[in-house]
């Protein structure tokens, strides 16, 4: 069942999604949004209004770092990269998320065949 059109990312999961999309390579803000959308098969769309404040928040927390680089099209863009403590945070959050989903599933399973 497809998730209804362009649902906003659940509050609290945006940090997890951003950290995850940065797990393999540094990205700039726009492509982080694209990456999340593509990976979720267009189910999740990150509004720019949430993305950039979240990026700043994570950076101030020390989980990601940023630097200005040149893109393939030769434009200056700000690239975000996971830091060591960001990576640890990502592991923790994944564990949390899985535990959470599992718990919710258990609740939903009660009284169903």
């Amino acid at each position, binding site marked *: 069942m497809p998730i209804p059109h362009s649902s906003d990312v659940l509050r609290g999961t945006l940090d997890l999604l951003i950290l995850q999309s940065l797990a393999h390579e540094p990205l700039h803000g726009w492509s982080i949004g694209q990456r999340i959308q593509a990976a979720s098969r267009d189910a999740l769309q990150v*509004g720019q209004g949430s993305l950039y*404040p979240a990026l700043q928040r994570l950076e101030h927390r020390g989980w990601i*770092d940023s630097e200005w680089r040149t893109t393939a099209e030769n434009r200056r863009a700000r690239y975000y990269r996971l830091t060591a403590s960001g990576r640890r945070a990502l592991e923790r959050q994944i564990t949390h998320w899985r535990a959470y989903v599992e718990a919710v599933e258990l609740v939903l399973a009660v009284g169903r065949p």
Partner: protein
Amino acid sequence: MDRLKGWMKQLRAALRPGRVEREMDEELRFHVDQETTRNVALGMAPAEARRAALVSFGAAERFKDELRGAGLRGLLGDAARDLRHAVRTMRRRPTLSAAVIGTLGLGIGVSTAMYSVVYAAVLQPLPYPHGDRLVAVWETYPGWRGRPVLGDFWDRIGLAWPDYEQWRGRQQSFDEVAVFARAQMTASGGEAERLEVGRGSASLWTLLGVTPALGRTFAEVDDGAGAPPVAVVSHALWQGRFGGDAGVIGGTIALDDQPFSIVGVLAPDFRFSGERGAPPDVWIPVGAAGLPLGPDNHHFSGIGRLRAGTRLESAAEESATIFRGDRPANALGAALRPYQEDVVGSARPPLVLLLAGTGVLLLIACVNVAALIASDTARREREVATRLALGASRARLLRQFLAEGLALALAAALAGVATASQGIPLLTALAPPDLPRMREVGVNGGVLAFALAAALVVTLVCTMSAVIVSGSRRPATEGKAPRRVTARGRRAQPVFVAVQMVLLTVLLTAAALLSRSLLGVRAIDPGFSTAHLLTTVVDLPAPRYEARGQLVDYYQRLVERVGAIPGVEAVTGVSTGPFADGSESTSVGYEGLPEEAAKPELQRRVVLPGYFDVTGIRVIEGAVSFDGGGRTVAVSQRMAERLWPGQRAVGRRISLRDQWYDVAAVVGDVRDQALTAAPEGTYYVSLQASRETSPRMRLILRSPLDEAQVASGVRDAMRSLDASIPVEPVERLDALAARSLAAERYRTLLVDVFAGASLVLAAAGIFGVTLRLVLRRRREFGVRLALGARPAGLLASTIGRTAGGAAAGVSVGLLAAWALMPALSPYLHEMPARDPTTFVASAAALVVVSLAAAAIPARRAARVDVAEILRDE
């Protein structure tokens, strides 16, 4: 580690806001460009692609704000940016900002200065330990109550030394009690100088907690009769006469020809008993140098510090019992008043009235500022609507307007502090000499804080009201905002005018009443002439001039020598001169006085020859014949009527100290104590020809020269006769007359200044508000004109609104004045507090001013160029 890095980033961002802002812009621009590129790749036309990117990007303003609002930088950066924005806004509207700052500055400054003066004079705690428990103690003679002259003093009679000793020994209500008295003595040895002398009991110094700058004060051994002649000098005298020489301790100072050895120097800020006027130059023991301390010498002021928890009433009862001794209960009593109240006395009510005037001024300033800022609401609401539409958060806007209000209030505060610190010296310099504690005035922190707070509240409420009002409105209705504002402004203008007028009517009426009263007082004929008359005081030290012959001889020769000064046309003298010397009364017996009746108390004047000629006092009946040597007196008309009503006074006799004198002449009444006081019955005796004497005489000189030109001649004449007599300054008699009105003039001046300042503020306010109203309605006026309205009609409708507001305000104001003005009665001389002429004139003046202030901008309404308006559309 990474956490630390994050903090460093925040700190860097806070320190370099410009760079962060640029980077943020660039990052968001990059995002939109990427989105556009993707849209093109999906097959959109470039323009369409970009539009779609922008739409999907959405409310950029909002998350720029959110980005800025994050972290430490958010707080600092926002504040700085808001303040910068506020200053920019202020500079874009220089007239409005200047008007707000000027108005508030004037209001804050004048009210602070005024309150500071009143505080120092009336409210400031006394600078002594437990000053709030200090009590002035007087004896009372209930029998004097209601009697002429004496009746004024019945509850302010000094203590005699034996009373004090009894009191001090037996009282239980006070921690400590003391007595002191004031006198004038002549310091000789070196420059002869008239000094203010304080006589104080040893306990005074412990009571006041005095630590001398040098040496000691008095000890118990210095108390009572036969005390050693010691002296404690003031810091000022030490610095002046003794050049600040520390060796002054152990030296001597000669007072009235008697040597006193100096044992101490007081601290520079010790001003006891000098609260109204000059503090003593020297303090000496109460009984030093044979000064009388008998049971009949009631010349000491009592002071005590109440024990903690003791009530004033019970202390008064105890003191009365002690003073009374075994005398009957109604013969003698005690009056106790807080010392501060005793010092401030009659100065309090007028000052408190002035304070009310100050409050009105501050209120007018605030109303004005409120109106000025409100007139700018249209701009604000448009801005709010636009920015809300762009996605700015309401909190963000509130912060921005808060900053705008703060910036205005801060600038106004600076202007206010500057005005206050300039104004206070001016106020104290102009203050009449008897206003207490004027040397202690400083900017009062409390009231400054109050005025600043008032200013802050007004500006903040007004600037932020735009956001609050628009909070209820959705951004989509933005287009309608200006019209609504106009409608509101149109309704608000007459209300504003009315409020101003209520306050102004009260203030202006008060100012007009006081001014008219002062003019009336100035026009009073004192009964003698002051033109071309100069005056100075000569006071002969008692011991050397005790013999009557010497005294008469001295004055005879002095008159000759002063009369010989080139430019001096005539010289005379009087024991108690006009306007400066107060009252000098004795009880007088007379022919026809019933045996058992009390002798009336009448004013005595001992005069030198030519007194009536020089001063121009009219001789009504008989002839003044002092020079003949007979025992004769001249009496004033009022005295003649009082002693022998309806009968001829000339030829009658009065007795002074058991010596009979023939009444040789009746002379005109004079107001020589104060212009506002009714003339008292007065008799005149000749120094030479009577047995009456006076060591002190006020010389009166007629000369076309000014005082400075004559002064050196007078000094030389006095030096040549006896160099040990101090030379007092020569003054113009009309200057003395003017000084006697100093309190009235000061009061009137201050109220006039308030009224004037308020009138200017109000006129400026009405002008500003009307102008903005007209400017905002230009379009409407243009359309009306295009549709055939007559310019005169538009003018009339604009002014009519103001006139309505003014009329309503003035009416309410007149009612308020009707209720309030009787409070001014004590300060109005021979004028009703509800003088109809003054009321009508003030009201008319206000209506005219408000209409004029509205008419000037309203003329613009009539001159709107239709073509120009339509082009603007």
